[in-house]
């Protein structure tokens, strides 16, 4: 089951990478008023269904992929979740 976890810096947390990219976009003539940089993880989990995959991915995101003090995450199934 394929799931995507996206991890982003929390609002208010300094994002030096985003800021460096923003400045250089400015230098190249692009008008970007804000850039935030995060991480994306595509997980292929050996679980029964997409719903379970999302649940497990959430736990993984919390425990391993992000630091809740500075980051927030969201989880999306790559196949539609049947509720």
């Amino acid at each position, binding site marked *: 089951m394929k799931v995507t976890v996206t991890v982003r810096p929390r609002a208010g947390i300094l994002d030096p990478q985003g800021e460096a990219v923003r400045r250089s976009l400015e230098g190249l003539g692009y008008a970007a008023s804000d850039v935030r*940089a995060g991480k994306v993880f595509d997980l292929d989990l050996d679980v029964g269904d997409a719903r379970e995959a999302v649940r497990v991915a959430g736990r993984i995101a919390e425990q391993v992929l992000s630091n809740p003090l500075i980051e927030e995450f969201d989880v999306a199934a790559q196949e539609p979740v049947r509720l």
Partner: protein
Amino acid sequence: MSVAVLAFPGSCDDRDALRAVALMGAEPVRVWHADSDLGGAGAVIVPGGFSYGDYLRPGALAALSPAMAAVRELAAAGGPVLGICNGFQVLTEAGLLPGVLRPNAHLQFRFQDVALRVQRESAWLPGVVAGDTLEIPVKHHDGCYFAAPAQLEELDAAGQVLLRYVHNPNGSVENIACVTNAAGNVAGLMPHPEHAVDPLLGSVDGRILLQGLLDQAVAVEAAI
């Protein structure tokens, strides 16, 4: 002979490169990334460090700077260009050298002296022959050289691989440590020749590459 050393925000080894150039008897010229000419220098070093903090991809943001346009021009005219570590990353990102440098396979920054096996005779390596070893330190987080198989074949066939690691410190494909462009006048390597020029600090094998840079600049100048 004067040698331009580029400086980007976040360059760290630019001062070391300037010092090494002076030690080799050439005149170092510091070129700021926002400058659009190389101050008349006949050769360029793109130095190590963390230009733009290595944010995004190492070398990616520096490759877009005005000074790099001037480097491109010099390279097109046959002038020698040497990229060291971050400078190697900049030159690959700028398309002046083949391949790309990715995070070390072990994902750690690695500082150590490495032994390098010379692959062939080259203007970059005056006085050494294939099979010789050089000792030069590496220090990087993203030094894992990568090129697609087809491209690797081309590089090998054209003799563009100058140095390979004896013990691979970073996972580089085929132990590649140093490559040139097809014309041979642009070279990049992860090890730091500018840190291997002073016997008090360790090996002096870095002088060989710097001498190669100077020799080529003199030859190009004489040809004009």
